[in-house]
């Protein structure tokens, strides 16, 4: 059954980090293999993460507009209805198209794909088993890109039915009447939004006193205010204690900020408190790799693990668990192996919550700057004063620019606005080139666009915003 395959490089895991690393490897002339335990390529991101959730967000946003915004435009949509089956089918088509696309890319780049769980056996060997074929893959370089899995709370174990992770919450067959979301980060807010738009009563429980805690407080507060208008209910500073079943009904039990015990009835409980590195069955101990206290694989600046010839990238290594971070690491890692100077600029990784409005950021927050003792100046511009935003009903939100007080260098940008995931890109480019707030403010932005608010916020850093009083 076993079969020796001499490769230059093998990647374990076909998520955005893994498959991109494999393509870059093939581009650089390495004979490359990719190992994936699931039937389709693409990892969490394409199959059960970024992509399906965006499909649901888009569909439900249109439905929400049809139900609540259309009439104001003179659009009559009485007798509106939505089919969850068709909604899910649309999402599945999106996922299938993209997974198929990755498979096509592997073929085009002459990358050998092995289906099965990859296990390190030392000496450049990886045993593939439990999939469509058993194989022993031999390679000079091994890149671990096995990603992450949802964190399970010990007092709130997943049961696949009532207490679920995001994987199930993108595939409910009907709208839960009462959905409780534990954790007000990106996944909780996005999926909470999806089901709230479809009519679920959504309660979001967050241990911290704010939602979207990686953003500055003014951004989080604005987000909270806007989501409340969309009927999400927040229980902040609240600690989940467990789950209780009574008379066929499920209740989430918690303790609020005042120390009072509370409980919420729930048809479904989505636990979205974060993700943990996924290295199960990988055989790390065989090659002498020890994970850190968070289960992450320690690496050096060039993605080398403690085992010779073994590298790791993406969610299994320290840093933000983001697909685009994993992709860049995959590219840089392989380029380093090829003797090039691949590099990831960790200071400039954009981060987005894809709610409506979207919340996007890059660089550091004002709060982080204060912690680090960096003197900053900030500029803010509200979309309420942006012509395009007014014309297209997107006046909720603002842009906040944080620049070094002395040098004017851009340190961070946060945008809460419809479509801000696209708006943040120009700020990322400016920061990648070491630009100043003035550079951003003096860069011409098309009129009328939402992007003008970015320029205006940059001008506001020195009090020079044009459409502001």
């Amino acid at each position, binding site marked *: 059954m076993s079969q020796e395959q001499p490769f230059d*490089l093998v990647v374990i895991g076909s998520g955005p980090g893994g498959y991109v690393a494999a393509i870059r490897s093939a581009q650089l*002339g*390495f*004979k490359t293999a990719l190992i994936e335990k699931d039937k389709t390529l693409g990892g969490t991101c394409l199959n059960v993460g970024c992509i399906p959730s965006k499909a649901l967000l888009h569909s439900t946003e249109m439905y929400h507009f049809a139900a609540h915004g259309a009439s104001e435009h003179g659009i009559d949509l009485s007798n509106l209805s939505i089919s969850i089956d068709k909604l899910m089918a649309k999402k599945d088509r999106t996922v299938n198209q993209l997974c198929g696309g990755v498979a096509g890319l592997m073929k085009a780049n002459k990358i050998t794909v092995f289906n099965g769980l990859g296990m390190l056996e030392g000496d450049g060997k990886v045993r593939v088993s439990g999939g469509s074929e058993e194989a022993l893959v031999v390679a000079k370089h091994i890149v671990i890109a096995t990603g992450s899995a949802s964190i399970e709370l010990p007092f709130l174990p997943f049961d696949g039915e009532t207490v679920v992770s995001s994987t199930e919450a993108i595939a409910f067959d009907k709208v839960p009447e009462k959905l409780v979301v534990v954790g007000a980060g990106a996944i909780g807010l996005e999926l909470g939004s999806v089901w709230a738009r479809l009519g679920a009563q959504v309660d979001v429980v967050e241990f911290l006193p704010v939602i979207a805690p990686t953003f500055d407080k003014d951004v989080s507060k604005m987000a909270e205010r806007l989501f409340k208008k969309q009927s999400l209910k927040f229980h902040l500073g609240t600690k989940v204690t467990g789950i209780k079943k009574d008379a066929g009904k499920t209740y989430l039990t918690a303790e609020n900020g005042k120390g009072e015990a509370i409980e919420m009835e729930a048809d479904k409980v989505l636990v979205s408190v974060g993700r943990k590195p996924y290295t199960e069955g990988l055989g790390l101990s065989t090659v002498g790799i020890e994970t850190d206290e968070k289960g992450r694989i320690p690496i050096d600046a060039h993605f080398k693990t403690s085992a010779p010839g073994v590298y790791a990238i993406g969610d299994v290594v320290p840093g933000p668990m983001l697909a685009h971070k994993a992709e860049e690491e995959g590219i840089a890692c392989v380029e380093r192996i*090829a*003797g090039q*100077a*691949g*590099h990831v600029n960790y200071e400039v990784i954009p981060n987005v919550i894809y709610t409506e409005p979207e919340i996007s950021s890059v660089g550091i927050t004002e709060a982080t700057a204060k912690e680090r003792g960096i003197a900053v100046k900030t500029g803010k511009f509200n979309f309420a004063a942006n012509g395009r935003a007014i014309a297209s009903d997107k006046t909720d939100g603002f842009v906040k620019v944080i620049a070094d007080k002395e040098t004017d260098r851009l340190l961070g940008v946060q945008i809460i606005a419809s479509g801000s995931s696209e708006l943040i890109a120009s700020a990322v480019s400016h920061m990648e080139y*070491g630009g100043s707030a003035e550079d951003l403010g003096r860069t011409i932005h098309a009129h009328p666009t939402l992007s003008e608010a970015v320029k205006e916020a940059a001008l506001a850093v020195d009090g020079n915003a044009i459409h502001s009083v």
Partner: protein
Amino acid sequence: MATEVTIPAMGESISSGILSAWHVSDGDTVEKGQTIFELETDKITSEGTAEVAGVISIQVEADEEVEIGQVVAVIDESAVGAAPAAPAASEAPAAPSEAAAPAEAPATPAAKVDPVATLSPAARKAAEETGADVTAITGSGKDGRVMKSDILSAPAAKAPAPAAPKPAAPVATGERETRKKMSPLRRKIAERLVTATQEAAMLTTFNEVDMSAVMKLRKTHQEAFVDRHGIKLGFMSFFTKAVTHALQAVPEVNARIEGNEIVTHHFYDIGVAVGTPKGLMVPTIRDCDQKDFAQIEKDIIHYAKAARDGKIQMSDLEGGVFTISNGGIYGSMLSTPIINYPQPAILGLHNIQQRAVVVNGEVVARPMMYLALSYDHRLIDGKEAVTCLVKIKEAIEDPSRLLFGI
């Protein structure tokens, strides 16, 4: 008080060039005599120096075409030792009276950005891979940012870091071809070679020469020659003298066509082709009829060094009547050189090899060299060309002919 930095005159035929690099940045304090820019012209690369000390304000970007006499920078002498911001302030009140000055002072230069902190992703990668020192590169980007192109066009700082061990299998890493702009010198060489082949009716005559006599003379007198002159006696002085001798014997070859006229030279300025990192250059050894062997050897060494260092002057390259090109040093056995137009002829030297030749009815091994003389047939007939080459051959085989002019 501000002093203008202008492009110096460099010779009769040069009216413009490319300011290929600034060695200082806008706002830098320069010393008197400091090299501040590099200038590439059709024929040579030269350097410009600061005539006074002060703070420089650059007015022309690197890689721009400049004309002789053009102001490319202004050095503010009053700003010596002052804080960088001071000159703008102290100059301000005087501005109205200086309004008519040809060189308009630029607006206060933007604060120079930190070249390392503002490195773009591609530039960062290129810098690490080429080992370029970004702090030493003048950035062409906004506010002097060092761009990828700046790093790739910077003189190689060090050999790229040795690549990590690559898989033995297909190592098709990297591009299969690279592209870069032709330097002005390369463009000019290309242009002139094409001109020569298109304008002249060029053909080549060959001969072979027995180097025994020259080699013997060198061996016999080398020590004394070095003691006396401090340099070695090479082959080039023999050939230069032999060419001079041949031109004297066949004056038709020492001429050029100008319109419908034939201009005959009564001087013997011989060009000697020298390979340099930037391309081929042909410095001219003046009045070879009046120079002895030692002086010719010294001249060649001087020019070769200056050419390789990029310090050669325009005047060093002008006015030759004939060129000698030695492909032999690279191992060439035989070639057909292209004339250095408008000169009418060029002598190609080749490698010296022991070959079997018949001397007095016997086959013997002799150090032989093939000679090639390419000439412009419009001006020179076969008879003169062949005679000229034979004269050269005879003088090399029997250098005593040079003594007697026979």
